[in-house]
C-alpha cells in the first residue's frame, strides 16, 4: 500500500473514484460513499474479525476479500455487488440458514433477525444443505437473557461486546469444528457464570441466539406528551438504522417523541435529569437565567455596629484576583453561551443534555421551545447505543464542526485570536473522540502527538511522583490539555483520565504546530499558561516533599492556605463560631463544626484546597475552578445547582439564596422576583482583620492558622502549639 503525501489513498469502488485515509477498511470506505455492504459479524463499535464472510467483495484477487478487515490500497478496484459476489453471499446465507431455526426467537419477538432478513431479501425459503444441530440445549438459567445455541451463527459479536465493550470477558468461543460455540466462563450455565446481565451480548447478537426473557418496560413518563414510538418507526430514522430491534423492543418507552408548544420549557437549569433530547423539528432557545454574578461579602466595617452582608456582584463591578475573562460559558449542548448575553439557539438535528443523560449531572441551562418543536427524549441506554452508531456520530460531528467548533475554540482565552480561515482549515482535520469513565486518554511518558480540547465531561490530570500519584487538576468543557508535551516536542508530562463520559476534540500535532507557527501570540499565551502551571506544580510538590506526611496531612491539610482549627481541649462545643459565621453571612453558615481531627485539633470545615478537589467534578457549566493560589473561585455563571456543595466531602461549599428579578420564562418580556442560588465558600471574612468565627469564640479555641507553619511546628519533638499559632 502506498499513500499519497497527505495520507490519503485513492481507489475505485463500484466505478466511483474515492479517496480515504490510509488504513481505512474497504467496508468503511464503501460506507462513507453510501454504498451498503451486507454483514453479519461486523458492528461499527467492535473490532472487525471477518468471520461471517458476508461482506465479501471482489478486489480483483484470486479469492473474494472480507471487506471489513481488508484495508484499502492505492489503485484498488473494488466491486461490491457483482453477480459472483452476490452468488457467494447467497450461498453463505443458505449455509447459515441450514443450521438456523426459522423463525428464531428474535424473529418471533421483534421481527429483525438479521440473518432471516437477508434470507428474505434473497428469497431463500428452503436451503439446499442438510441442517445440523449443535446438540446443546437452550440455556434459560439467566433471569434476563435466553440463550438458544442453535440460533448462534458464531459471528462473535457477543464475545467482542462482552470483552471489548464491557470489559467483562465472560463470553468466549469454545470447541472446534461442528461443536464450536459460545460459552460462559468455562462452559457454565449463563445463570451460574460470572455474567452480570448487562445485556451487551444480547444487544450485539444479530439473531435469536441471545434474546431478552423479560421486557423491562423502561418508561420515561406517562401522559399525552409522551408518545411511544414503535420500533419499526424508530428504525426508519437515520440515526437508529442498524440499532438492534431486540434492544429497541427491550427499551420501548426509553425513547419517546415529545411535542413542545412555542414558549414551553423543555428543561430548567439546575434541575436533575436523566435524559437527552434530540430535536427532530423546530427551534429551541437555550439560556441561563441565574444572574451572571458572584457572591461578594461587603460590610461597613469601620462603623461601630457595621455588619457584613452578601451581595451579588458582576465581574465588572468586583474584580477578583485571577479573575478569568472568559466570554463563553460551556453548557451541555452543541453551543456555548456568551457571558454578556447567555442565550443561543438550537435547531433540528441538535442533541442536548448529553452530560445529564450519561453522567446524571444537573441541567446546565434552561431550554425553551422557540417554535413548536418535536423532540426525541431518551434515556442513557438509548443514547449510549446511538453514540455507537457511526452514522449518528458522523451527523453529530458534522453539526459540531459546522456550528460549534468555532465558538468552542474561541471560548478558550488563548485561542481567542485565531482567524476564521484557520478555524475553517481545522474543521475537517480535527477529530472527535469519546472515552468511557476511567479510560486513559493520554499517559505520562508517552510521546505527545495531539492536543485535546474537552467538549463533554471531566478529565482528571495526574502526575506520578515518588510516593504516589497526585491529582493536578480536574478539567471540564472548554479546558484543554496535551499542550505541554507538544510545546516542548517531548513526552507527556501527565496522565489524563476520563472521569465520566468524555468527548474531546483532538487536534493532531501537525495542525497544532501549524497553529503555533501562524499565531505566535497563541504560542506565547500557551507558554505563559504552561509556565504558570509548572510553577504551581513545583510549589505544591515542594510542600509535599519538605514536610513529613501522615494520614491526615495526605488528606489535604498541608495543601491549605489557611485552616480553621478548633482546639478540642478548650472548645466547649458552644457553636458560637458557627453562629458568628451565619451572622456574618445572612444566616447561611459556611462553617460546620465537624471534620478531621489532628492531635487535639478539629479541622473545621473551610475550603482546604484539597489534593483531589472533588468539588470541581460535575459542575455543568464549569464555573468552579482553582486559582493559581489553589484557592477555589466560583465564576459568575454559577447556576446554583448545588452539585459542588454536594461533592465537597468536607461541606465547605455553601449555597446562598438571593432575591433577584429575572425574566419570566412563562410570559416572555416580563420580569418577576425569584429566589436564585449561588455557590460560595469561606472567604475568611477578608473585610475584617480576623475571621468572624475566630473573633466570636469566647474560649480561645478557634484559630486560623497557616497549616505549613502550624503542622511543621506541631510535628517537631516537644512541639509547642501556641508558638505554632
Amino acid at each position, binding site marked *: 500500500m502506498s499513500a499519497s503525501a497527505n495520507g490519503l489513498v485513492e481507489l475505485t469502488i463500484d466505478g466511483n473514484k474515492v479517496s480515504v485515509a490510509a488504513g481505512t477498511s474497504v467496508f468503511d470506505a464503501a460506507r462513507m460513499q453510501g454504498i451498503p455492504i451486507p454483514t453479519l459479524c461486523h458492528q461499527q463499535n467492535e473490532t472487525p474479525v471477518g468471520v461471517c464472510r458476508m461482506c465479501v467483495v471482489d478486489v480483483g484477487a484470486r479469492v473474494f476479500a472480507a471487506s471489513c478487515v481488508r484495508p484499502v490500497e492505492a489503485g484498488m478496484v473494488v466491486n461490491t455487488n457483482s453477480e459472483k459476489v452476490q452468488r457467494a453471499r447467497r450461498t453463505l446465507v443458505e449455509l447459515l440458514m441450514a443450521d438456523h431455526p426459522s423463525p428464531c426467537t428474535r424473529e418471533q419477538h421483534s421481527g429483525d433477525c438479521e440473518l432471516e432478513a437477508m434470507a428474505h431479501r434473497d428469497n431463500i425459503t428452503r436451503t439446499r444443505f442438510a441442517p445440523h444441530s449443535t446438540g446443546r440445549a437452550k440455556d434459560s438459567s439467566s433471569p434476563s437473557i435466553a440463550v438458544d445455541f442453535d440460533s448462534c451463527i458464531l459471528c462473535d459479536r457477543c464475545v467482542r461486546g462482552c470483552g471489548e465493550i464491557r470489559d467483562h470477558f465472560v463470553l468466549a468461543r469454545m470447541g472446534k469444528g461442528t461443536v464450536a460455540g459460545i460459552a460462559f466462563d468455562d462452559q457454565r450455565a449463563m445463570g451460574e457464570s460470572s455474567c452480570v446481565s448487562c445485556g451487551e451480548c444480547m444487544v450485539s447478537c444479530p439473531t435469536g441466539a441471545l434474546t431478552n426473557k423479560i421486557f423491562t418496560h423502561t418508561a420515561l413518563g406517562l401522559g399525552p406528551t409522551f408518545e411511544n414510538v414503535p420500533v419499526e418507526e424508530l428504525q426508519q430514522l437515520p440515526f437508529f438504522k442498524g440499532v438492534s430491534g431486540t434492544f429497541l423492543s427491550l427499551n420501548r418507552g426509553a425513547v419517546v417523541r415529545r411535542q413542545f408548544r412555542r414558549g414551553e420549557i423543555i428543561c430548567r437549569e439546575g434541575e436533575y435529569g436523566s435524559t437527552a433530547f434530540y430535536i427532530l423539528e423546530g427551534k429551541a432557545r437555550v439560556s441561563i437565567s441565574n444572574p451572571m454574578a458572584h457572591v461578594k461579602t461587603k460590610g461597613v*466595617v469601620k462603623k*461601630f*455596629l*457595621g*455588619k*457584613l452582608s452578601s451581595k451579588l456582584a458582576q465581574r465588572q463591578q468586583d474584580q477578583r484576583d485571577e479573575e478569568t475573562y472568559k466570554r463563553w460559558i460551556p453548557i451541555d449542548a452543541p453551543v456555548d453561551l456568551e457571558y454578556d448575553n447567555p442565550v443561543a439557539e438550537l435547531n433540528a438535528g441538535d442533541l442536548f443534555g448529553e452530560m445529564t443523560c450519561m453522567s446524571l449531572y444537573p441541567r446546565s441551562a434552561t431550554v425553551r421551545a422557540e417554535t413548536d418543536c418535536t423532540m426525541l427524549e431518551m434515556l442513557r441506554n438509548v443514547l449510549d447505543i446511538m453514540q455507537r452508531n457511526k452514522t449518528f456520530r458522523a451527523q453529530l460531528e458534522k453539526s459540531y464542526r459546522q456550528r460549534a467548533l468555532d465558538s468552542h475554540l474561541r471560548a478558550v482565552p488563548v485561542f481567542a485570536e485565531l482567524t476564521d480561515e484557520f478555524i475553517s482549515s481545522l474543521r475537517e482535520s480535527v477529530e472527535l473522540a469519546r472515552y468511557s469513565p476511567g479510560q486513559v486518554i493520554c499517559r505520562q511518558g508517552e510521546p505527545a502527538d495531539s492536543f485535546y480540547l474537552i467538549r463533554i465531561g471531566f478529565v482528571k490530570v495526574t502526575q506520578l511522583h515518588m510516593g504516589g500519584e497526585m491529582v493536578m487538576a480536574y478539567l471540564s468543557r472548554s479546558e484543554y490539555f496535551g499542550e505541554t508535551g507538544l510545546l516542548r516536542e517531548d513526552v507527556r508530562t501527565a496522565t489524563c483520565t476520563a472521569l465520566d463520559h468524555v468527548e474531546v476534540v483532538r487536534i493532531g500535532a501537525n495542525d497544532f504546530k501549524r497553529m503555533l507557527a501562524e499565531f505566535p501570540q497563541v504560542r506565547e499565551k500557551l507558554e505563559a499558561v504552561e509556565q504558570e502551571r509548572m510553577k504551581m506544580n513545583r510549589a505544591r510538590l515542594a510542600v509535599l516533599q519538605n514536610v513529613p506526611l501522615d494520614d491526615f496531612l495526605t488528606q489535604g491539610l498541608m495543601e491549605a492556605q489557611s485552616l480553621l482549627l478548633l482546639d*478540642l*481541649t*478548650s*472548645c*466547649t*462545643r*458552644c*457553636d*458560637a463560631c458557627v*453562629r*458568628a459565621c451565619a*451572622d*456574618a453571612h445572612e444566616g447561611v453558615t459556611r462553617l*460546620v*463544626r*465537624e471534620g478531621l481531627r489532628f492531635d*487535639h485539633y478539629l479541622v473545621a470545615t473551610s475550603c482546604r484546597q484539597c489534593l483531589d478537589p472533588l468539588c470541581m467534578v460535575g459542575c455543568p457549566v464549569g464555573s468552579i475552578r482553582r486559582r493559581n493560589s489553589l484557592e477555589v473561585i466560583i465564576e459568575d455563571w454559577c447556576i446554583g445547582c448545588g452539585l459542588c456543595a454536594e461533592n465537597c466531602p468536607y461541606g465547605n461549599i455553601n449555597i446562598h439564596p438571593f432575591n433577584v428579578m429575572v425574566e419570566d420564562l412563562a410570559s416572555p418580556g416580563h420580569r418577576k422576583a425569584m429566589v436564585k442560588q449561588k455557590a460560595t465558600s469561606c472567604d475568611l471574612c477578608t473585610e*475584617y482583620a*480576623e475571621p*468572624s468565627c475566630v*473573633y*466570636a*469564640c*469566647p*474560649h*480561645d*479555641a478557634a484559630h486560623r492558622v497557616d497549616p505549613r507553619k502550624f503542622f511543621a511546628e506541631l510535628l517537631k519533638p516537644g512541639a509547642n502549639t*501556641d508558638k505554632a499559632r
Partner: protein
Amino acid sequence: MRIDRTHRKWLVASLIILGVASAIYVFYAARSPAGPSGGSAVGFTFGMVGSAFMVFAGLLAARKKLPVVRLGRAQSWMRGHLWLGLLSLPMILFHGGFRFGGPLTSVLMILLIIVVASGLFGAALQHYMPNMMTAEVQKETIFEQIDHVRTGMIADADALIAATTGASDAGATRQAARAPIAVQTVALTQEAASALSNFYVREMRPFLHNDGGERHPLADTGSARAIFVELRTLLPGETQDAMKSLEDICEEERQLRRQTRLHHWLHGWLMLHVPLSFALLLLGCVHAFMALRY
C-alpha cells in the same frame, strides 16, 4: 474557658485589685467606729465597683448576641467575665462589711454567692471536660445531630441483620443507612438466624433506640463484650465481620450516650448560673434604687 498561662495577666491584675481593695477595706474598717457600712463613701464605692463588675460580667450574654460586631474579641470578654465576675464577690462583701443585712440584701448576697460558685463550677467544668470529651468520645458528632446519627446507625444495623439472616423486611430503613454496607450473605441455620434475630430485636435495637438507660446490658462495655462473645459462639465464622460491625455500632451508641451526658454537664450548669445572674442584676438594681432613694 480553659484557665491556662494565657490568663496570667488577668490573674495578676485581679490579685492586685483584690490586694488594694483588701488593704483599703482593712484600713477603712479599722477607722470606722460603727464598723464598715454600705452607706459610707468607701462602702458605696465598693458597691459601685462590685456592681460595675457584675454588670460587665452580665454583658457577656449581650456580647454573644452580636458575635460579628467588632466590640472586642469574645475571648477578651470571657476573660473579663471570669475574673471581674469573681472579683465582684469580695467587692460586694467589702460593700456590706461581710454582713448580709436585711431581707433584700440577704437574698442578693445569697444569689451572688450561688452565681459566683456556679460560675467557678462552670469554669472548672469548661477547664476539664472538653479534654475528657475529646479523649473519651472519639466518635463525637454535633450534639444536635445525635438523633440523626442514631437513625443512621439503626438503619445500618437493620441492613446488616437483614443481609446476615436473609430477612428482607429491613428494606425501608436501608434508605437511611449512612454508607453502603458490604455484607457477605451467609447461609445460617434456622437456630443461628433465630438467635441473632432475637438478640437484635430484644436487646440491640431497643438499646439503639436509647431504651433501658444506663442499666441496659449493652450500655456497659464489659457486659456488651461478654454478650457478643457468647453470641459469636452460636454463629458461624462467616458472620464475624457482621458481628464486628454490630459491636462497633453498639460502641458508637455508648459514645453518643457518653457525649450526651458530658454535654449536659458542660452546659447544664448555665441553667442555674444564667437565670440567677439576671435575677441578681435585677434585684441589684432594685437594691440600688431603694438605697439611693431612702
